[in-house]
C-alpha cells in the first residue's frame, strides 16, 4: 500500500512534473485543434465521394477509406516519420503527426458521415429539389443537418478516439503530454508523472464519454 502511494501517487514528484506535463498538454490540445477539423473535413469529402452516383468515384473513395482503416495509426505515423526520409522527404514530428492522423481520422470520420448520409430518407432531398433548391443547397440545408444529427454520438465518440490517439505522437518525440510525462518518469524512475497525465486525460475525456453514453441511450429509446 505504502509502495503504491510512493510509486504511483507521489505528490512531490507530480508537483515537479506538473509544469512540463502542462506544457505537453498545450501541445496535445494544439494537435487536437489541427487534426480534428482536418479529419472532419477530409472525412466529409470522402463520405460525399463514397455516396456519389459515379461508380468510379464511389469505389475509389471506399477503397481508400478501407485501406486507411486497415493500417494501424502508429504504423502509418512511423512510416511517414521514419520511412519517408529514406525517400528524401523529411518531415517535422508535428507535420508527420498532422498528415498521419489526417489520413487515419478522415477514414473513420468518412465511415460515420457515410452512414449518416445514407440514413437520410430519399424523400427529403426530393422535397427540397421540388421547391427549386439546387443540389448543393439541398445538401447543406436539408441533408447534412439531418445526417450529422443522426450520427452525432458516433462523431463525438470518434473525436474522443482522436484525442486519445494524440498520445501516439510521443513515439515520434513530439513533446505532447504523454511524452512529457514519460520523460519525467524516466528521470525519476517513478510512475507518478504517468498517473498525473492519466488523470488529466480522464478529466478531459470522462465527461465526454459519459455524455456519449447518455446520448446513445436517448437515441436508442
Amino acid at each position: 500500500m505504502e509502495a503504491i502511494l510512493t510509486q504511483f501517487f507521489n505528490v512531490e514528484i507530480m508537483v515537479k512534473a506538473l509544469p512540463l506535463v502542462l506544457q505537453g498538454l498545450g501541445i496535445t490540445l494544439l494537435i487536437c485543434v489541427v487534426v480534428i477539423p482536418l479529419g472532419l473535413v477530409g472525412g466529409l469529402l470522402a463520405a460525399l465521394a463514397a455516396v456519389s452516383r459515379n461508380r468510379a468515384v464511389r469505389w475509389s473513395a471506399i477503397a481508400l477509406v478501407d485501406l486507411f482503416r486497415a493500417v494501424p495509426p502508429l504504423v502509418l505515423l512511423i512510416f511517414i516519420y521514419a520511412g519517408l526520409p529514406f525517400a528524401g522527404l523529411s518531415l517535422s514530428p508535428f507535420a508527420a503527426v498532422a498528415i498521419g492522423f489526417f489520413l487515419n481520422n478522415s477514414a473513420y470520420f468518412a465511415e460515420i458521415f457515410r452512414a449518416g448520409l445514407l440514413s437520410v430518407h430519399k424523400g427529403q432531398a426530393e422535397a427540397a429539389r421540388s421547391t427549386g433548391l439546387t443540389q448543393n443547397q439541398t445538401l447543406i440545408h436539408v441533408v447534412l443537418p439531418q445526417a450529422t444529427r443522426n450520427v452525432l454520438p458516433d462523431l463525438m465518440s470518434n473525436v474522443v478516439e482522436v484525442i486519445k490517439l494524440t498520445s501516439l505522437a510521443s513515439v515520434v518525440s513530439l513533446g505532447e503530454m504523454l511524452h512529457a510525462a514519460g520523460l519525467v518518469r524516466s528521470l525519476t524512475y517513478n510512475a507518478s508523472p504517468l498517473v498525473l497525465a492519466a488523470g488529466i486525460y480522464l478529466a478531459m475525456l470522462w465527461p465526454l464519454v459519459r455524455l456519449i453514453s447518455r446520448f446513445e441511450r436517448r437515441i436508442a429509446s
Partner: protein
Amino acid sequence: MTQAAQEAVAPPTLVVRGLRKSFGSEEVLQGIDLTVARRELVFVLGPSGSGKSTMLRCCNRLEEPDAGEITLEGDPVTGPKVDVNQLRRRMGMVFQAFNLYPHLSALSNVTLALRKVRGLPRPEAEAMGLTALDRVGLKAKAASYPAHLSGGQQQRVAIARALALEPSVMLFDEPTSALDPELVGDVLAVMQDMKAQGMTMLVVSHEMKFARDAADRVIFMDAGRIVEQGTPEQIFETPHHERTQTFLARFSGRG
C-alpha cells in the same frame, strides 16, 4: 384586354406531349399527352403501378423523362438549357409521405426555399411563410417541429411549403394516403379551398368524393397510358373503357 381575354390567349399552364419513361426494360410511361388549363383541377386515377407517380415526378423532373416535351406556361421544362430549379419553384409538389424537414420548424420548412431559391431576406420570407401557414390554418403552429404535429398538420405544412413559393401549378401525389381517416378531411378542405382560390392542380389520389366535388376533369391511367378521360360524372357514372369499369367496380366494392 380584360383579364378573361388575357387568359384566353395565354398558353395552358401545363402541357405534356409524348412523355415516355422506362426503368430498366420496363416502360412505365408509354406516351402521355396531357394538358392542364389555367385554374383547372385534373384528377388522376389508376391502379397501383400504372405510372401515376412517375408522370408527376417527370413533370418537375424529379425523374428525367426519356422522351417527350413538357412546358409550363409556354416555357420549356425539358431540354438542356432549362434552369430546372427556377421551374421547380413554379411547380409545387406535395408528397404522400409529407417529407417535411424534421430538423426545421414548420415556419423554417416553409421559408427555406423562399430564402435560398427566391433569395428573399429573412423577415420578408417569414412574413410570406406565415401567410402560407395561415392559408392552411396552421399559423399557430409556426414554431412547432414536424415531430410534434399530427399527420394531417404535417401534410398541411407541406402544402404551405409549396404554396408559399406562389407556384403556377400544384402537383399532389396521394396526399392523403398516409393519413388516418379522421385527418383526411382537413387536408382535402385545404385543397378544395385552394381550388376555389383559382389554383391550377394536378392531383393523384383515391379520394373519389373529392374528385366529384372539386375536379374539372378525371383521367384514368393504366399500364403507362391515359386510357380514358372526362368530367367526373362521365368517368364515374358511364365509364367507357373496360379497364376503367373493372377498376371502379373493385374500388367501390372495397370502399
